């Protein structure tokens, strides 16, 4: 990487204000400057470009460094000094690409052309490198919102999707929608006829609210009422959601939305009207530079690409998304959710916590609070391959019984014994009858039913790529157990149909469950991954498009990370 280090010596910049080079039709003669912003990729025909330092210190392009991933070979190919280029700060390099005579255009000279395009690509990538960060991922779920910048591996903020407003639930009781009490309130927008009497204008009430953990804290005190603007994954109260977003953007992330592209997510089967409302808020209130609305399940699939078991980066697969409240099994075929086959299971993280708690209570442990149960669930639980054998093993090896020490703030401490719940708690996914009496179908069977109800030509892909996502799938060996159980189901069925057909042999069906390191914030990480790709911005809808076409523009988004993109 000698050249790359050399490049890093000074700040290398591209460009001249206002010059954006797209494809040069006809390959006009003359020299042609490339300013990297825009689609640097389409720069015309061959002939090595020349780099020359440029001391024009105050152009409008912003500074950024050449990313180390620019291949050394491409630098050589274009005759860049691979030794060292030392530039003082704020000096510029203009990439001068001489255009070839017209007859060269259209002539196929793939090698040279490719080299040049690659350089142009590299430069464009360099500029994007700085701008790629400018993408925000906002994931708003029923329980928690996750916000952060694309390109990172975890969200910056995770907090409850809650908003505490003045006046609280009591004053808004009539409408039932939890609207803020803002009726007929004069503000500077309704005309400042009242003159300078600020105290008469109750203009800051709509700014008086809290979100996230602060909302929970504020609602415990007097004067504030708590609201959850998202119910069952869908936004119910747009006013509150708008204020929630404005506070997330300005107070937590502290960004100017105009500078950023936003990636938001929606649950599967979100009505298109909701998309339009979301886009309206994003474009009209926040003026965001661009917007992409992705489906959570698709992002969860993309997150699994980091696993070493995934080689083909396809967007076909079954997503098992298990969070705090509910578990969804969602089949996705080439980036599109098969809505009719989605199934949800009323067993998720909270139920496991309750189950652990009930076991602790039955044994009469000194502390069986919900918090303790949760800690035990997170720290000790794992999935066993067979309950009966696991019981026997516990009896054989007494050191499998763990002890969980708890220290209270007042200095007292107790020890809670942790026993069979270590493997029994996650077992409720596989044998729900030990926990609930009304829901009895094990998770593997549900997954199998979901895939069987999907179109026949995608089933193989769905079995092949079962992706886990969400906090309740993090138990050790969860994926292995699930894979084994589904495989058993599938093999039994294949054997049965082989027997029925009398001698025909099946080619077999590959079932694989993908566990990966980013499961906890799976959809967020997938979003971050896709939004940090250079192509992301071309998939976004911009404010200009919104102004031009109106709300219907957000009904369709090109598939991010789908076929055709890199």
């Amino acid at each position, binding site marked *: 990487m000698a050249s790359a280090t050399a490049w890093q010596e000074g700040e290398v910049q591209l460009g001249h204000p206002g010059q954006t080079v797209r494809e040069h039709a006809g390959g006009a003669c003359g020299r042609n400057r490339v300013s990297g912003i825009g689609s640097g990729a389409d720069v015309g025909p061959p002939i090595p470009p020349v780099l020359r330092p440029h001391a024009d210190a105050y152009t409008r392009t912003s500074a950024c460094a050449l990313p180390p991933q620019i291949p050394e070979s491409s630098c050589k190919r274009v005759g860049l000094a691979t030794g060292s280029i030392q530039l003082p700060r704020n000096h510029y390099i203009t990439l001068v690409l001489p255009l070839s005579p017209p007859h060269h255009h259209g002539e196929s000279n793939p090698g040279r052309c490719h080299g040049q395009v690659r350089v142009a690509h590299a430069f464009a990538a360099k500029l994007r490198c700085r701008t790629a960060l400018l993408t925000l991922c906002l994931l708003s779920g029923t329980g928690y919102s996750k916000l952060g910048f694309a390109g990172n591996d975890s969200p910056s903020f995770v907090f409850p999707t809650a908003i505490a407003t003045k006046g609280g639930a009591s004053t808004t009781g009539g409408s039932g929608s939890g609207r803020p009490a803002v009726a007929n309130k004069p503000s500077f927008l309704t005309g400042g006829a009242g003159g300078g009497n600020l105290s008469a204008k109750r203009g800051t009430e709509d700014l008086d609210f809290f979100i996230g953990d602060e909302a929970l804290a504020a609602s415990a005190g007097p004067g504030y009422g708590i609201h959850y603007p998202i119910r069952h994954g869908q936004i119910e109260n747009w006013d509150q959601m708008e*204020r929630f977003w404005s506070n997330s953007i300005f107070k937590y992330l*502290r960004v100017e939305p105009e500078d950023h592209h936003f990636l938001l997510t929606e649950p599967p089967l979100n009505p298109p009207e909701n998309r339009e409302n979301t886009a309206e808020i994003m474009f009209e209130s926040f003026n965001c530079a661009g917007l992409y609305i992705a489906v959570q399940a698709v992002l969860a699939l993309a997150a699994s690409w980091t696993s070493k078991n995934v080689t083909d980066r396809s967007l076909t697969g079954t997503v098992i998304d298990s969070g705090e409240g509910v578990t969804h099994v969602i089949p996705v075929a080439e980036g599109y959710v098969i809505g009719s086959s989605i199934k949800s299971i009323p067993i998720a993280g909270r139920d496991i916590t309750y189950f652990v708690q009930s076991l602790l209570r039955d044994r009469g442990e000194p502390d069986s609070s919900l918090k303790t149960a949760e800690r035990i669930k997170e720290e000790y639980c794992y999935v066993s391959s067979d309950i009966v054998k696991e019981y026997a093993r516990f009896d054989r090896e007494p050191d499998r019984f763990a002890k969980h020490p708890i220290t209270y703030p007042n200095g007292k401490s107790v020890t809670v014994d942790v026993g069979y719940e270590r493997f029994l708690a996650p077992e409720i996914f596989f044998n729900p009858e030990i926990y609930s009496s009304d829901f009895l179908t094990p998770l593997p069977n549900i997954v199998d039913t979901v895939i069987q109800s999907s179109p026949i030509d995608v089933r193989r892909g769905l079995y092949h790529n079962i992706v886990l996502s969400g906090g309740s799938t993090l138990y050790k060996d969860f994926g292995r157990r699930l894979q084994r159980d589904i495989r058993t189901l599938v093999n039994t069925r294949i054997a049965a149909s082989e027997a029925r057909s009398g001698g025909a042999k099946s080619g077999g069906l590959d079932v694989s469950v993908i566990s990966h390191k980013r499961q906890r914030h799976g959809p967020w990480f997938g979003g971050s991954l896709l939004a940090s790709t250079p192509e992301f911005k071309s998939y976004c809808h911009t404010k200009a498009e919104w102004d031009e076409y109106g709300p219907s523009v957000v009904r369709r988004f090109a598939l991010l990370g789908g076929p055709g993109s890199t």
Partner: protein
Amino acid sequence: MILLQSHSRFLLQTLLNRVQNLEKGVELDYHWVEFDDVRYHIQVSMKNSHVLLLSMSLPTPPPEAIFFGGLPFGAIEAIKAAYGVLVQILDPPRDGFNLTLKLNLSKLPPDEEHRHALLVKIASVREVVLGAPLRVILKQLASRTIAPNLDRLVAIVHRPNESFFLIPQVGKVTVVFPMRFKDSIDIVLATSFLQEFVEARRTAGLNNVPSCLWSSSPPLELKGAPGEALLANAGFVTFVIFPRHVEGKKLDRTVWSLSTFHAYVSYHVKCSEGFMHTRMRRRVESLIQALDRAKPENSKKTVQSRSFKRLSLNDARTNSKS
């Protein structure tokens, strides 16, 4: 929320998290951006988990602002004064950034309260660096020393390629903000907001605050500023700061409020747009209700939950004839 806090929430949260789990080796590599194009990068390596590298890139300065080695004047001194031994400035900074600080978390004071204060201070590195030149001038005002650059225009960068201006005079400092917005709606809202802002200054309770003026054309103080700096589509806001505004602890607040004035206005513009949407949504809802009430009765369902046949135009005509 009316005023932004001076510390970056995420940075403080990360720092506190690190300090609490100091002995736990954690790999950390995180990029993020703040308003006005301030970028951060924080890095902790597995090997040296108590050393933390914090890099920061500042908005691109316009030609009139004074920068030394990529930093506003007085920034290095301000960093040294604020953090002492805890922080080491790496030279050259990391690639693509203007400033890299090496924080040694093992050198934090053991005293809980003191430590927290220092972490908050680190999290407000933006204020320390970008506010440094402003602080230097306001300090001179507070101590009533005669500044060497009296009556000369000082430009301080606050947004990419944009600066605001300070005119230090005897006994006061005049601060002028050229306000620029991109969107046409924003411009209108910001203009009316600023007019109202000036109006609000005249209320009885706010006698002691800096006086504030708004004008659509550049004020006389800006004579001699470069032409490009005088193009502002939402007018110019002028504050006059007197020594009483920068006494003691007030200095920090004044520096922060002035250097984020644009973000403050921008936030309120966005809030007003949100507020108007709330009202528009309610209006639409009430109109829809009115429409629903006006729907013809005959589409109501009967007890057998079978609806009446809706009359077509022809049927209606024959009915009226008969």
